[in-house]
């Protein structure tokens, strides 16, 4: 746990940290087969459904072995692949209900092995982002999204880009540490629309 001083330092350097590259550690000197053996030991007894859900896709593999520092060519391939996989709403409307979006942003429940399958799944945006002035309990792994819609002049094309960002963060930044909420099916299309509204509605606490 942090000392008080370290916590304060963390607060002060928030702006810098938010944009700093996430990891600098050296690359692991071990072959993939060996790592797989250790992974297999970790999940020796888990049900098949869990095993499948936790099998790496191509993007996760590259981001892992490069420690989130893909080469330019790898990065281009990732953003192209992930962008092609973004499913926009059929009617083209990306703005849902900001009040429900607040739930998506606040709640961090769901999807843990200790949860029921029908436990509400939240996006837990506040875990990593500042979003409104009222909510002081926010994390610093991502940049502040305070006044996000206002700063983008509430432009419809910006809202659409934000839908894509939340649906699949890596469609815009390869190996982003932000989860690909829609791509992996963690959040529904409706929840993502609600989250976009939370960021883009003029009445949302984000913009007030």
């Amino acid at each position, binding site marked *: *746990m*942090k*000392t*008080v001083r*370290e*916590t304060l*330092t*963390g607060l002060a*350097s928030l702006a810098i*940290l938010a944009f*700093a590259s*996430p*990891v*600098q*550690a*050296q690359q*692991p*000197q*071990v072959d993939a087969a*060996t*790592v797989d*053996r*250790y*992974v297999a*030991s*970790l*999940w*020796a*007894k*888990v*049900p098949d459904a*869990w*095993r499948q*859900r*936790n*099998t*790496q896709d191509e993007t*996760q593999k590259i*981001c*892992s072995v490069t*420690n*989130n520092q893909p080469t330019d060519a790898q990065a281009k391939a990732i953003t192209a692949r992930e962008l092609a996989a973004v499913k926009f709403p059929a009617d083209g409307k990306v703005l849902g209900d900001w009040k429900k979006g607040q739930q998506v942003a606040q709640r961090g429940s769901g*999807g*843990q*092995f*200790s949860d029921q399958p029908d436990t509400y799944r939240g996006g837990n945006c*506040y*875990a990593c982002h500042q979003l409104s002035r009222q909510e*002081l*309990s*926010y*994390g*610093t*792994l991502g940049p502040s999204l305070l006044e996000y819609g206002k700063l983008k002049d509430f432009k419809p094309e910006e809202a659409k880009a934000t839908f894509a960002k939340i649906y699949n963060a890596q469609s815009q930044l390869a190996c982003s*540490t932000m*989860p*690909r909420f829609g791509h*992996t*099916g*963690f959040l529904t299309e409706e929840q993502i629309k609600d989250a976009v509204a939370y960021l883009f509605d003029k009445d949302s606490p984000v913009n007030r």
Partner: protein
Amino acid sequence: MKGLIAATAMVLTFAVGASAQNAQIDSEKEIERYRAMINDPMANPGYLAVDRGEQLWSLARGTKNASLETCDLGEGPGKLEGAYAKLPRYFADSDRVMDLEQRLLWCMDKVQGLDTKDVVARRFGAPGRESDMEGLVAFIANKSNGMKYEPQLNHPKEKEMLAAGEALFVRRAGQLDFSCSTCHAVPGSRIRLQGLPDFSKPTKDARETMGSWPTYRVSQSQTRTMQHRLWDCYRQMRHPVPEYASDGITALSVYMAKMAEGGEINVPSIKR
């Protein structure tokens, strides 16, 4: 003693329950203050686990009706002082790198002839279910107090463990694409209001963290080991239940011990 423990637990629980930023900083201060006081074995509930572990260490059990007192934790049969500071490490008799829990399970089987199924079933204590492992680890780790982490990395299998542990640390998977490094590689960061220690390189965070496990967790009213902490982080990551005492957990522990090299051990500590 019971009264003092209950009072301490209450203060910590209330302090932690608050959610505004100032309250959090206050509660961190409060916890620091309690941490200083809590090194007193009469007031730290973690020492109840130490006592339990001491009894279990000398208790004759299993088909061989033997105690664990001849178990070799790496420093020679029955030698406890400093053993924890050098774990995980390679053991020639099993030809494996083992952490303390794996080694204890091995000794229960080989030295005591004990069926470890029940011990593993009770690996994490809960109300009405005491954990032998949490007691034994608290007892043994406590015998390294004041000593520094000295990761053992001479044997090729120890080196492989370190490399595998580092690979696991940055390995992204699951529905939220999380790896350990998502949360533990950005210095000074927080998730909500909780400080996130940086283990991506040798850091003060890593030394202080590893030097303070096992710990008495006030929110759970149990003494917990690194096995439980990693179980909890994998849960938050939306990964499946990690296998207890598996080589994967040991690999991560080797990696963490390396990042914590030189960190002073003072356990059982007390945390939220």
